[in-house]
């Protein structure tokens, strides 16, 4: 397939993509996704591996019938709720207003497009 290049008159998405506002939005969004994924998958796969290959660790009792394994399940539930809540709040306050700004600039038309260079 032939390499495609953006047309000379400038694709408006490309222009928006290189705008400072969008780059901030993109950096914030991807930074959150990255650390959230690391925490989330790190937690789950560490726990899964412990349950699978170090069962004695998870059998350790922490009080009454409750062992570390059950505590891990409980904390996993808490993690899902907490991480969802944090992401919803982060997105509402830090992502959506910026996204709205970029979108409004884009949809208003080429004349009032977002500040930024066309590549």
């Amino acid at each position, binding site marked *: 397939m032939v390499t495609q290049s953006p047309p000379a008159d400038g694709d408006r998405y490309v222009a928006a993509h290189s705008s400072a506002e*969008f780059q901030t939005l993109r950096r914030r969004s991807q930074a959150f996704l990255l650390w959230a994924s690391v925490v989330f998958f790190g937690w789950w796969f560490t726990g899964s591996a412990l349950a699978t290959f170090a069962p004695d660790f998870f059998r350790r009792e922490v009080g009454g019938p409750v062992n570390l394994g059950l505590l891990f399940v409980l904390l996993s539930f808490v993690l899902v709720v907490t991480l969802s809540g944090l992401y919803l709040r982060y997105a509402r306050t830090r992502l959506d207003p910026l996204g709205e700004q970029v*979108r409004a600039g884009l949809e208003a038309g080429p004349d009032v497009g977002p500040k930024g260079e066309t590549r």
Partner: protein
Amino acid sequence: MTVLADPPPPVDNTWAAPAVAVPATLAIAVVVFLLVRAVRGGIRDQGDFLLAGRRIGPGQNALALAAAPLMYSTLFIITGHVALSGYDAVLLLTSFTMSMMLGVLLFASHMRNLGATTLGDVFAMRARERPARIAASVVTLTIYAMFTVITLAAIAFILNRWFGLDSLVGLAGSVLVVGLVTVLYVYMGGMPGVTRLLTFKAVVALGVVAMLTTLVLVKFDFNLVRLLDTAEARSAPQGDYDLLGPGRLFGEGSDRWVHLSKLFCVVVGVAAIPFLFMRNFAVTNGPDARRSAGWAAMIVVAVYACMAVVGLGSVAVLGRENIGVIKAHRDISLPKLADELGGPLMVGALGAVAVLTVAGVFAALLINAVTCVTRDVNALRGRRPAPGRELADVRRNVMIVGIVSVVGGVAMLPVRTHIFIPTSIDVAGATILPVVVYALFWRRFNTAGLKWAVYGGLASTMFMVVFSNGMSGAEDAIFAGSDFKFIDIEPGLISVPLAFLLGFLGTVLSGERDDAAFAEIQVRSLTGAVVPARRGASVGAVLDVGGNGRDVNRGDGNGRDGDGRANRTTSEAR
């Protein structure tokens, strides 16, 4: 017939209460009929029928999204699984709640913002349209076929366990009726109707879960510690493995890898299953889609935390001999518990709810397949309905796909198809997940990468499934008589990373590169902006359902026609 050929020990169904269950099911069917019929008048075009005009609010979608994956196996059998296998089963149940996270973080707002109608629309944003739509259709319809077969089989299981029906003809006839009634719901109400059905299912299922949990806890004076102690004491001894510690099911040798692979596959695959994935498209806007996915995750956590309590509670209440004591009998534990807690009245009511949950899954599957056929497949065939015939066209597709599915599902009843559920999850994780990740975040990604990821992920999963214990070498395999199995683990543990690797290789080995498409998908996925641009001809055509203007949609949803038509004009003008 699987449900009739119960392996020993014999199951003596002493609890079924058809005299309650049948009227309760009919009552639920009538309620759903009225709910679905009420939205029929609001359906004016294909956008209304397939995506509810993107007017579904975050609260309703959260309920529907949380309810959609609650089926017979994940809501009803799971308690028996927990009662029998203890901690290992609890961990599997937890992985279903963890699986919602990928939907919240990666899929919900990004996919809604793209303004797509089908998986093919998403795939086509970073690849040439034709191969993208072919790949998306192959994935969607493969998963649809497998999931539908097991969903319809689940109806037979319910009728056998909860209604006491055990003649093959009776089961086949009943599955046919339930299946066709569900097709009728979808025919009438389209996506708005399916959403209503799922919302109703969510409310009923949540009520049932809350009631069961309360009744179990009442037995132990709301003392969870006493419940756990009793469950441990009354469960069957099994070597060193007690009920609340890991290892009861997967404690030895290579079984441990099986366990790990299952925990992995559920987490990466479930949220990508197309009929769940597409629910994101129907929400009012990107932020609402994100909210609804987040709330759905919280609802699912609550449901599964309760189901773990009910599962452990059932062995605590019933004792080791009275639960299902082998894997194939896990589904008798919950009806027995219901019988113990509330007698025939509760068994009958729960049987009816079980039918509702499965019918809801089938309806969600069917609207997904119809969307794929109406948009992706017809675009590939160059078919366009005559003007004014769009609704008739999509309803005809519901009839064709629905009836073929129900008849095919009934014909497949005698086959042991339980392997189809994990396989569907693996396929979703090994095809849709890598494509979405690369499409959103990798500038270089292209058509070849998409093809390699999708077909490589699909083929490697299927190859391993053929040689897994679902096909042969096990009592409950499709070919139980033969043994050509050499794969024990859940294939996704290998095929998901492999699909990522193949997607990478395919991309870098191809010269195709489209930086503008990357800029477009990034801007659109984060902002929801839609402007006529370079790719108006291919991707603009995709936008004609409901448009994507957020302000316009927010509130009354009336503006969507203007926005949608504008895009359609752009695309048709070319």
